């Protein structure tokens, strides 16, 4: 659906994007994550046709009239009603206005449908923006931080709306909220300093990118056990916070599975519990971007 090749964008002396080879499969929900200033908005702007790349190419396999874009803080003329805003969006994309009330209901804005949007809260504007995005039945949806301004309930509704697009549209959305990405995305791309540091399925990121770690609880004294483990060549680091829990970073899961129990026994450790640390998207993200 979307393929970029060696995409680059410079603002003066600053490289906003460097050699980005993005690949978004048709029908997927792709989460684009990255720290502030990583180039997410620039990349979405180029894909939306709002910015021009300095070099590289963009290939989008979608009807231009069925590509919908939602900026991070959508704004509309304050004197229009919600119905009129969505009606305009539909008229400009699909040519009719028969889905206006339905999408406003889906966005939870039925009660405010005939109120001027100047009186809408930030969360309501975000949901109105999403209603404008989906009213034209797009095949490709580009969302820039769609849930960033919302309270937990609003975030839930937006994520549900995005989830409902699965199967009908390809969705590419940027987010700082890794839990949102983990919940709704099947593919993730990590943008760091303008370069794509990782691209693949969420499972690949969690399994393949994060360095495996074990959490071990032992009876005191703990420092002798920590020192003994730290001397082993397959142990990368031992974190010991003064309690009875050690966090042991190992070079591979296989090493830990075959050697860790023996090493603890050799160190005379009285083991209460041990097991691999569950890898969060946040930790995988930090590993990739550090």
């Amino acid at each position, binding site marked *: 659906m979307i393929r970029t090749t060696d995409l680059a964008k410079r603002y003066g002396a600053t490289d906003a994007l460097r050699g980005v080879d993005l690949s978004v499969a048709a029908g997927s929900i792709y989460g684009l994550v990255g720290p502030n200033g990583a180039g997410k908005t620039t990349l979405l*702007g180029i894909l*939306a*046709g*709002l*910015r*021009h790349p300095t070099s590289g190419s963009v290939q989008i396999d979608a009807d*231009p*009239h069925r*590509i*919908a*874009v939602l*900026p991070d*803080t*959508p*704004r*509309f*003329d304050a*004197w*229009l009603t919600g119905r*009129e805003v969505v*009606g*305009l*969006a539909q*008229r*400009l*994309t699909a040519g009719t*206005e028969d889905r206006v009330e339905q999408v406003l209901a889906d966005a939870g804005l039925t009660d405010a449908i005939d109120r001027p949007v100047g009186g809408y809260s930030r969360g309501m504007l975000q949901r109105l*923006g999403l209603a*404008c995005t989906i009213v*034209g039945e797009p095949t490709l949806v580009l969302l820039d931080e769609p849930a960033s301004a919302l309270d937990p309930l609003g975030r839930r509704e937006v994520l549900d709306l995005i989830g409902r697009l699965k199967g009908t549209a390809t969705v590419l959305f940027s987010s700082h909220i890794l839990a949102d990405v983990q919940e709704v995305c099947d593919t993730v791309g990590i943008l760091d300093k303008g370069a794509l540091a990782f691209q693949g399925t969420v499972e690949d990121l969690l399994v393949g990118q994060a360095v495996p770690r074990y959490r071990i609880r032992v009876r005191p004294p703990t420092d002798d056990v920590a020192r003994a483990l730290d001397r082993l060549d397959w142990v990368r680091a031992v974190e010991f916070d003064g309690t009875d829990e050690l966090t042991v970073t190992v070079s591979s899961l296989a090493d830990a599975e075959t050697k860790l129990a023996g090493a603890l026994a050799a160190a005379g450790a009285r083991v209460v519990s041990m097991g691999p640390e569950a890898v969060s998207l946040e930790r995988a993200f930090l590993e990739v971007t550090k």
Partner: protein
Amino acid sequence: MTLWRLEWMRLARTKRWIALVGVYVFFGLLGPLTARYLREIVDFAGGDLEGATIQFPPPVPADGMAQFVSNAVQIGTLVAVVVAAGALAFDAIPEMGVFLRTRVSDVRTILVPRVVVTVIAVLGSFVLGGLAAWYETWALIGGLEAGDVVAGLLFGCLFLVFVIGLVAAVAARASSVLGTVMISIVVLLIMPIFGISEALGRWLPSHLGGALATIPAGTESFSDYLPATAVTVVTTVGLFFVALRFAASREL
């Protein structure tokens, strides 16, 4: 809801049409009134100027239009610039620009309704004000040649189309409505400075703004405005072309 209806609604709901019609019709009614009763107004305000006496010639019909033009060209044009900038600087709030730009394949689809509706509103208000001034001049001072008034109105309208073209070109580059207004006003203020030279001034678009005063007064004829008309037509077409090019290449 279409982009055309959006622009009519912008004029109606933001009450901008009241500002436009109000300022032109107000000066249209006020101009002939002050021309007719200038002597009485000065007397009422205290005509004794430390022994000096002001002698006013009897008012003539052309004075009514001259009073209207002197106000309408300045304050009316200022209001027209503000109203035009509000409609034409559609990227001033980038999120609004994104909403529109990502839903059309050509920026002309956005720009044309905004230009056309603004032109109709500004020109309609100016003509209404001019007709009010003409009527009141006839009622208070005396009649004017219809052909002279119509010619003056046409030249005035052409100048206002040039003003809107200027605002459109500036708006396509400026980053805010205020910036668009300020830059446009600076350009419009610079023109009369060049116009101090009579040889150069008769070629400038700003020269057309005075036609409604000078043609009915007989101090200039229709043909005296042809050089400025030619320059204005060419410049205005160029400004709209530049506005389209700038708007199409602009990044958000």
